[in-house]
C-alpha cells in the first residue's frame, strides 16, 4: 500500500460520506454544501490520479460556479424543509434499486479488475493537454462552444418573464394607509375639541386618495 493509496482512501472516504449526506440531509442548503464538499473531494481524487488540469477545472467550474447556481436555485424556489416533505413515497424503491445496482456493479468490477495492479499514474503536462485540444479535438471544442452559447440563450429565454409584463408598470392597487405616522402622533396630543376636525380632515383625505 503506497502513499498514493493512503491519500486516495482518505479523500475517497470524505467524498463518499459527503455524497451520501447530500441525498439524505433534511435541509436543502446543507445538501448543497455537502454537494460542494463532494465535488471538492472529486477534485482531490483527480489530483491523486495526476490529472492536475482537470482538478483545477473541477474546482473552478463545479465548486465555484455550479454550487453557487444550486444555492441560488434553492433560495429562489422556496421549498418545505424536512425529510417527509423532501422525500417521496418511493424511498424504499430507491434504496432497493441503488443497493442492487451497487452490489451488481461492484461485483463485476472486482471480478474484472481485482487482480490488476494498474500503472502508476504519470503527470501529463498542461501544455500537452492544450496541444491535444487544439489539434485532435478542435472540432468537438468548437461544437462545445456553440452548445454553451445555445444553452446560455436558452436559459435566458426560459427564465425571462412573459412578453406582456416584462418592463411595463403593472396596474397595481395602491393601498392608502391614511395619514402619515407623524400626523397620527400630532393628533393624539391635540385637545378633544380639535380632534373632531382632525378626523374629519383625515376622512376626506382618505376619500380623496381612494385606490383606483
Amino acid at each position, binding site marked *: 500500500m503506497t502513499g498514493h493509496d493512503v491519500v486516495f482512501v482518505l479523500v475517497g472516504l470524505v467524498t463518499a460520506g459527503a455524497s451520501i449526506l447530500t441525498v439524505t440531509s433534511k435541509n436543502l442548503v446543507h445538501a448543497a454544501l455537502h454537494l460542494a464538499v463532494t465535488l471538492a473531494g472529486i477534485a482531490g481524487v483527480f489530483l491523486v490520479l495526476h490529472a492536475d488540469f482537470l482538478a483545477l477545472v473541477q474546482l473552478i467550474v463545479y465548486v465555484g460556479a455550479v454550487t453557487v447556481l444550486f444555492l441560488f436555485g434553492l433560495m429562489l424556489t422556496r*421549498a418545505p424543509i424536512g425529510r417527509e416533505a423532501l*422525500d417521496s413515497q418511493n424511498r424504499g424503491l430507491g434504496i432497493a434499486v441503488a443497493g442492487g445496482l451497487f452490489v451488481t456493479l461492484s461485483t463485476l468490477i472486482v471480478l474484472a479488475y481485482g487482480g490488476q495492479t494498474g500503472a502508476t499514474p504519470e503527470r501529463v503536462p498542461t501544455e500537452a493537454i492544450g496541444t491535444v485540444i487544439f489539434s485532435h479535438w478542435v472540432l468537438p471544442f468548437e461544437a462545445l462552444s456553440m452548445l454553451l452559447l445555445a444553452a446560455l440563450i436558452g436559459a435566458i429565454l426560459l427564465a425571462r418573464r412573459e412578453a406582456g409584463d416584462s418592463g411595463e408598470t403593472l396596474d397595481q392597487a395602491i393601498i392608502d394607509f391614511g395619514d402619515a405616522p407623524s400626523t397620527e402622533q400630532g393628533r393624539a396630543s391635540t385637545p378633544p375639541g380639535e380632534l373632531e376636525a382632525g378626523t374629519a380632515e383625515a376622512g376626506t383625505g382618505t376619500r380623496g386618495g381612494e385606490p383606483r
Partner: protein
Amino acid sequence: MSPLGPLLLATLLFCVGVYGIIARRNAVLVLMSVELMLNAVNINLVAFQNLLWPLSEDAAVSGQMFALFIIAVAAAEVGVGLAIIFNMFRNRASVNVDDVDLMRW
C-alpha cells in the same frame, strides 16, 4: 496503484445519484443527483485513462478530454435545468417533481 479504488468510489457515487433521483421530490435536489452521476463517470474516465491505459502516443489524454467535455456539458445542463425549474416554480408555485405531470398520458 490499483484501479479498484477509483472504480468502486465511482460506483458508489453513481448509485447514490440513482437513489437521489428516485427518492427525492425537490427538482433542484434531483439536478444535484444528476451531477453526482456525471461526476462518477468523470472519475471512471480518468481512472481508466491513467491507471489502465497510460500514455500512448496518439490518444494521449483522451480520458481527460472526455471528462472536460462532460464538465462543460454538465454546466450547460445545470443552467438550462435551473431555468426550467424557475419557470415551473413561477407557473405552479412548487418545485415538486410529483406535481409536474402535465405531459403524462
